[in-house]
């Protein structure tokens, strides 16, 4: 595909889609979304970019292994953090702090969701990039 319209608009749409993916992951705990859905949106963004440019998709070749590595690391961190704190593996740990007057709760479920996000993203985007490069 070599369409000028697609090429120009993809430059605008792709970053927005990636942002939306991030948003979906972050807010997933309270509203529709989550790591899996976020990853799918991000993969859709990448496929749009890859398809619109009609060139060898060199831009994302390295992103998949990095994403898988990041995902595995964050999942392992989640597993180990519970053990370190003396709970059974994978137990959710929450840290509550107050920042500029806002109550903020940060927990391992968010990290877990990011782990899922990265693994799914890495897996499927690697597939698409390989197929396009074929």
């Amino acid at each position, binding site marked *: 595909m070599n369409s000028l319209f697609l090429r120009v608009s993809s430059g605008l749409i792709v970053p927005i889609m990636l942002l939306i993916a991030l948003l979906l992951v972050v807010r997933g*705990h309270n509203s529709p979304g989550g790591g899996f859905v976020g990853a799918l*949106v991000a993969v859709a963004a990448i496929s749009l970019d890859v398809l619109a440019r009609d060139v060898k998709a060199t831009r994302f070749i390295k992103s998949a292994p990095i994403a898988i590595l990041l995902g595995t690391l964050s999942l392992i961190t989640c597993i180990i953090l519970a053990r370190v704190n003396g709970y059974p593996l994978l137990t959710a740990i929450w840290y509550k702090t107050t920042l500029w007057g806002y109550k903020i709760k940060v927990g391992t479920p968010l990290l877990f969701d990011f782990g899922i996000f990265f693994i799914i993203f890495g897996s499927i985007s690697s597939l*698409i990039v390989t197929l396009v490069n074929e």
Partner: protein
Amino acid sequence: MDVTLYLAIGLLLACVLYAVPRLITTTVTCLYWLGFLFWSLGIVDFLTTTSLAWSSVIGITLTYQIDGLANLFIILISSIGVLIFIYAHLYTRGNNHKRATLMGLLQFFAISMLGIVITDNLLILFICWELTTISSYLLIQFDLTQKEANQVALNSALITVLGGLIMLVGFIMLKQYTGSWSIQTTISYINTHNDTISLVPLFLLILIGAATKSAQFPFHFWLPGAMAAPTPVSAYLHSATMVNAGVYLLARLHPIASHISIWYPASAILGLSTMTISAVQSILSDDLKALLAYTTLFVLGSMFYLLASNQYLAAEALVTFLLFHGIYKAAAFMIAGSLDKQYGSRSLRALRGVARHHIALGILIVVVFSSMAGLPPFFGFILKEMIFEAKLASPTFSPVVMTLSIVTSSLISAASYKCLYKFYEKPNHKLEAKPFRFGYACPALLAVAIVTSSLYPASLEPILASATNVIVPTGTQAFQSVTTLNTLLLSALTISLGLIFFIAYMLVFRHRQHKETTNFRKLFEGLVNSILAFGNWFTERTQNQHITFHLKFICLSLGLLLNVLVINCVWPIFSVSWFQDIFWITLMLSIFISLLTITLLFARNFIHSIIILSILGLLLSFIFVAQGAPDLAITQLLIEILTVIILVLTLQHTKVDYTYTRPPLLNIVIALAISLPLTLLLLYSTHLPLNEAISKFYLANSVTKAFGYNVVNVILVDFRSLDTLGEAIVILAASLSTWLLIREGIRQRNHIRNSS
């Protein structure tokens, strides 16, 4: 320092050796093993043996039993290990890649062998047992380009793994009987509970394990085959590790021997048959390493025969044999390796006269091979005396056994004479030696050890006596080596018979090219191949390549089952009112989806059908929205989009033309047979009373306990995060394998394109 930690450091060292094949890492490894050596000799006491619970649920605890027997083996493994590491370092000079692999694997091998001899837990023993099998497999097929090495490595691995598994069954039965994985508890339990009957099958299973590892007849053929390994590996495998594991296990369990009626006969028969078959082969071999391998087999057979005795003398002879055989066999193998390196051949024919002009090498060869032959000034002679004494006092003693052992020992002596003779024979061409610096340093050290132990046999006594007391715990006799007139006569007879055999060999076989008789090996390989052939035949008959055929078969059986279920259970209670509760938007969408599905049947090509399928998916996500499941709807939507992309990307490369043809009647029948009952079942399921407790639990706890308002997400990442983790791993594995398949496909296509 704890032993467990020290072992872990050893394993780490294996990785370091693999990464940095330098002199410094070899030095560190040697220091590591010297640490073990000094510890077991009692010179430095820096290791503690606290037990560590690994998995208490199934009773695996890392407990250690460091007694005389374990100490003897630690001394063997570590002292010969140090020399082997030095030798391997010299052997692989100038080839860092080879050195990295060899040293790393050797270290792994040595650590796992050490694990066998110091653990008190049967399961840990089994694990280390199999680790030695795996590492020896990798070491034997070290040269990947040699098909022969690959085959013999596979043979050895198959035999020892099978034996190990059979032995595991025996261990489990032992645990069932005694209720403990600990070897010491097991021994004391059996010694206090006298049930002789139930132990026989169990013992036979363990004996098979020990016999396969120690290469007893009829599993003996893997050991001569294993000489395909690099010589440092052979030297270590034959002298201190691997093959001694079976002997160790039987020696360790020997205190319960008197409670098992068939222990003595079974062990004696195994030992004697191995001795016989190996002694004949060793004198006929021309390859130096093969000759040495057959003498190892003979030694192992003798050890098994010595284990078939409850006498203190036999145990004494056994431990002495273990130590001494380790020393001279390692030396002999190293000499063979150095000669091979220098003269490019292992054939005795080609190595004729190598010792003629090198006095130092000549002395070295004389010391090592006379020890092997059991000639008087050396310790081998005392050893032979001890063995004869033990055999005379053995409960399985008979004139036949005595004759057999004298004849076989003479044959082994004759093989040693043959080596000595060949090394001093006048060569028929000038020998040209490549340089191999320090190639004889390690065997020379071992020769010094032989001479020293021959001069001061008393220095070894404390070690050997404490090991003997473990094998035969009742005897508290002092270690003794009495040379009686009887044994002296027997020794003289052996030496002279050996000479006669040697002369006979020189007269008869001298100019005849001996062909290796590997009947058992051929039999075994034939067995393995026929199993593989049967598997191939069976697969070809049942699994033909047509995927549609398989799908039809699966779907038809599924349809039959579903129809039986629906006609029996659902149909009698079916009512039209089931349709009335469906939300009208859902109903409309369903009708639309059904219509679209029918058009799918008439699609012209792949792209058409993909487009229709994706529209179907989008409509499905609308149904989810209508039912109030936004998470599901988003996921469905995105999956549909990505599926289209991936399908189009995949199909654009396929050359398959898709033209519309009317589907055969059978396909329509199959489709209806599945879809109709499935529809009814789904309808029925919506009218089943749900167990509300689960959903109520999640709804009640997701905010209070997991701090999240999106219950679906909270379930995914918190309540049931293990499931999610599993799914992520599945997706990762699937994508990795798909990626590999695609890459392989591309490579093959490029290959075809390049070649055409």
